[in-house]
């Protein structure tokens, strides 16, 4: 289990517990449940790399405690 921090730099900072074999799409659903936005409106980025929905966290080498950027579509 890893815990990822998502920050949108506008006041929303969310810590989400997930497995490393969860996909980004699953992570978006978890974030949506916590923030109240819709899952398909959320975009997760790291600098200019937009993370794709079907790839797992492990493949993106997202480790425990890592911070991701939260944007909206």
């Amino acid at each position: 289990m890893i815990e990822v921090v998502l920050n949108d730099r506008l006041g929303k900072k969310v810590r989400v517990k997930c497995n490393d074999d969860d996909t980004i799409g699953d992570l978006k659903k978890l974030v949506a449940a916590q923030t109240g936005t819709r899952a398909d409106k959320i975009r997760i980025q790291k600098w200019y790399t937009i993370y794709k929905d079907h790839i797992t966290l492990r493949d993106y080498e997202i480790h425990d405690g890592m911070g991701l950027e939260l944007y909206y579509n």
Partner: protein
Amino acid sequence: MANRTDPAAKSIRGTNPQNLVEKILRSKIYQNTYWKEQCFGLTAETLVDKAMELDHLGGTYGGNRKPTPFMCLVMKMLQIQPEKEIVIEFIKNDDYKYVRILGAFYLRLTGSDTDVYHYLEPLYNDYRKLRRKLADGNFALTHVDEVIDELLTTDYSCDIAMPRIKKRWTLESLGALEPRQSALEEDFEEEEENEDNEQPAEELEDKAHEKDYYRGRSPARERDRDRRRDSHRHRDRDYDRDYDRDYDRERGRGRDRDRDRDRDRENERDRDRERDRDRYRLREEKDYGREREGRERERRDRDRDRGRRRSYSRSRSRSRDRKEHDGGESRKRHARNSISPRRHGDGAEDGEPKKKKEKKEKKEKKDDGTDHPNPEIAEANKLRASLGLKPLRM
């Protein structure tokens, strides 16, 4: 300048009509090439020509969420705000299905509740295929009636949040609408007469695409079944909020067999709960009232779990003094059990072997991790289970 709404346009639902599309999506549309090139200076007539060239519908797609031409045209319509007659012409025309869908979409966004139902429901009879662009860029097959169903039942379509409209039976009870006449009415009634048992009628419900909001009109058998099923739902779950939407959506979608499965599961649960009800009431009165515990209990009923002690000792409070709360509860429980001879007697009656078997069953069956000792993890696992994800792996 090209993005300003027509100054003569009326305000829709209290705001600039273009505000029906939310800010981020609106900005995306304004920056889109199709909008800049093709949608500049369009009038109602030239818009029809553009609409005839459409070959797919959809919201935004791709990593950076590019809007489809369909979206741009919807935005254009909101900007120039064509007359209602023109929109109705769009809907009535039979040759170009995408023009029809465009008109229907616009009417759903801007029309009054009565108009929406009045003009969109005849489109249920249109079975033509449509091409829909999904969020990942691929195309999917859909049909006109499916899209209309989505417009009328859900409150989100093609990345635009639909304004809320009143439910059909509300409008019928107000007298603003006639009760719904389905095109499949006669077929449905015929089948009803032929069959006796419920199962085929249930299947017909699936086939009929019938959104029969107005309960009074449905045949007697269906009414009874619905009443039983719905009152059942009302009693168990916190369906109050989503009651109408779920009810309508399930009846309307007409394609899923989930309803059959749900019914069977509910019957089973009913039976289990009846059997276990007395035992629970005797033992844990203090937790009986709590709704959450009740839901937990239902799930356990299904699994025939008798190891309730473990679940009830787990406090659901998120406060920091959780430990004290927890400890207090379990301490109290021990005291209570030791005092009352009757309860102790009941425990002995059930017998040790049963408890052991239950514990083993419980360990095998609880694989979604919602009984984890750490309440945060248990909470997270519950959320994951509700989203359809596997539990957290430690």
